[in-house]
């Protein structure tokens, strides 16, 4: 415990605090010195119309990825929890995209979604549906990035759910069976409550990691189209800090993001721990 805490404090919290301090400055990433400018960065962020766009992107992207990842991940885990022939192969296939680095997936999916040579285009045109230009229309670009993210990370929710399913109490399944529960009731009233801690865990971790998605966006859209089409907060942090050199401002965005996440997560943890506490 202690070494872990020390590591986290030194390599995560120390930089975080540093970052908060810098959010009150006009630090240019390359500059040796920074000036204290008070809340100026915060004011700037709040009044920048792009911030609202970024916030909205982040929200849409996060909600969509969390929702889809949980639902699909659970469905797959339940499917492959059954004794079906060939499930090992399919399990591995589902896990495979998670194994590939985000950058590589981004590259591959640039291809998949390429409006001219891509697989999606190929499939759609076979059915006779026109392909939207995923790279030039902000809405579709967000759809593309979301789909890519979910596709890549489904292996994560899948594996965690699978582990939870494997560790569950089988006698309750029997009881539900005896009680004549329909598949849906069985799922809703018996299985899902047992998976509740897992679901909360996943909703928190998927949320935190999808908020921080960087690779895929950087490779596929660079935050575009039209400037902020797929820019999320973390991407904005990166862009302000390393592209626009406004490290102080980037630090501000990072701090705001941290605070939002902190609030969201503390609420989530509260709810979750209530469900888990033993009386």
């Amino acid at each position, binding site marked *: 415990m202690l070494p872990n805490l020390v590591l986290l404090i030194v390599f995560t919290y120390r930089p975080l605090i*540093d970052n908060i*301090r*810098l959010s009150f*400055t*006009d*630090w*240019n*990433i*390359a*500059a*040796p*010195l*920074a*000036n*204290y400018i008070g809340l100026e960065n915060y004011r700037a962020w709040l009044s920048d119309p792009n911030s609202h766009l970024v916030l909205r992107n982040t929200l849409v992207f996060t909600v969509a990825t969390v929702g889809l990842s949980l639902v699909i991940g659970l469905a797959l885990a339940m499917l492959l929890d059954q004794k079906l022939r060939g499930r090992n192969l399919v399990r591995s296939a589902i896990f495979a995209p998670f194994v590939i680095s985000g950058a590589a997936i981004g590259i591959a999916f*640039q291809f998949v979604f*390429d409006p*001219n*040579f891509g697989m999606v285009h190929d499939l759609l045109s076979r059915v006779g549906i026109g392909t939207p230009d995923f*790279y*030039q*229309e902000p809405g579709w670009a967000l759809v593309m990035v979301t789909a890519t993210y979910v596709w890549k990370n489904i292996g994560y929710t899948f594996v965690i759910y699978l582990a939870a399913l494997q560790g569950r109490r089988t006698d309750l399944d029997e009881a539900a069976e005896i009680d004549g529960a329909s598949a849906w009731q069985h799922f809703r009233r018996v299985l899902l409550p047992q998976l509740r801690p897992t679901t909360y865990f996943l909703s928190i971790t998927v949320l935190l990691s999808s908020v921080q998605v960087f690779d895929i966006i950087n490779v*596929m*859209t*660079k*935050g*575009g*189209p*039209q*400037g*902020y089409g797929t820019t999320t907060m973390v991407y904005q942090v990166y*862009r*302000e800090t*390393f*592209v*626009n*050199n*406004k490290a102080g401002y980037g630090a501000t965005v990072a701090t705001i993001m941290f605070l939002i996440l902190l609030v969201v997560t503390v609420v989530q943890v509260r709810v979750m721990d209530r469900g888990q506490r033993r009386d």
Partner: protein
Amino acid sequence: GTGSTTSDNGGGGTAGSGTIDFWSNHPGKSKATEQKIIAAFEKANPGLKVKLTDAGKNYEEVAQKFNAALSGGSLPDVVVVSDVTWFNFAINDRLADFAALATANKVDTADYVEGLYNDYQYDGKHYAAPYARSTVVFYWNKDMFKKAGLPDRAPTSWDEFTQWAPKLQSAIGSGKSPIILDDGSNYLDWTFQNIVWNYGGAYSKDWTPTFTDPGTVKAATLLQSWAKNKYLKTSADSAADFSAGLGAVLMESTGDLGGFKDLPFELGVGFVPAPEGVKTCPTGGAGVAVPQGISDARKANAIKFIDFLTNTANTATFTQATGYMPVRTSATSDASEAAYLKANPNYEVAVKQLPRTRPQDYARVFVPGGGTMIGEALDKIVAGSDVNGTLSALNQQIQSAYDSQLKSKVQK
């Protein structure tokens, strides 16, 4: 002021350790070439060693790593900087004055191609030497031009192209575009400069943004009308689309030439339109710079290495391996280079275009985030937003970015 995260000393690599740390992203997959040149350098300078550091997969990553080093790590001796990244380092006094160093170390800079060398000039100082440089060229699909009954050459002006566009369109059919350009997230802001300059416009004049100047507006309006008429398609990977035959014209970097092999059609390469011989060709790519924070002894070694890296012979080697522009005038007369150019006439076009190159506008390369903002606005214009409104908003954005981040520094 607070700034304890950042440190001013050069960190680790102590003076005269004899090892020159060269941070490169090996532009154009040049790692092997760089190693070859380094080996030759070490042979020629027995006391010196060069360490080639993988500093990233692109210029942004090199800048990121260099930034990290600036805030407390050990600095390199030589670092690759791109047309947009160098300025921020320079203005924050992180790069040594290359010209002064050259003079002090008796290195001749006169042989650098003037346009390319002057790209790194600001306020009377030079901050880098050109290294892996590219320019924009005009590519066309000869088969399509033939089909449309057009002359087998690049247009001399964009007006001329606009006249050709409907013919091209009807010849190649819908679903394909007369012209393909990058999109705003992928360097449209770079290539579009050519069109702007064609109409006498510019992104900026020195530090004053000029997006609302008539010439600029005209170019933007033209862009929008192309898009409306479906003459234009912007793409995240325009080169790939073009090479697959999805468009008749492409305006892109010379760097793509190397990739255009085995095309299913005949490729035309020409100068970008430049009415009355005005210099309208934007340059790009990267140079090599020396950090300010290292000792003089290290700087001396660094400049020695840069001189070697970009000498006539090595320029020839490098350009032939990668497809970048020769950065020295003498290189074109180098025997192997001459032979190479002869064998690759398309490539020669790019070299011949060099005298028509023009340094990029400050608004794109010097204003932090300028390129992104411009790209964003151009995306919107292509998508149909009001041209004047978008441009004047952009004008303001650039102005305020300049005011808040640069003004105080450039006027010191």
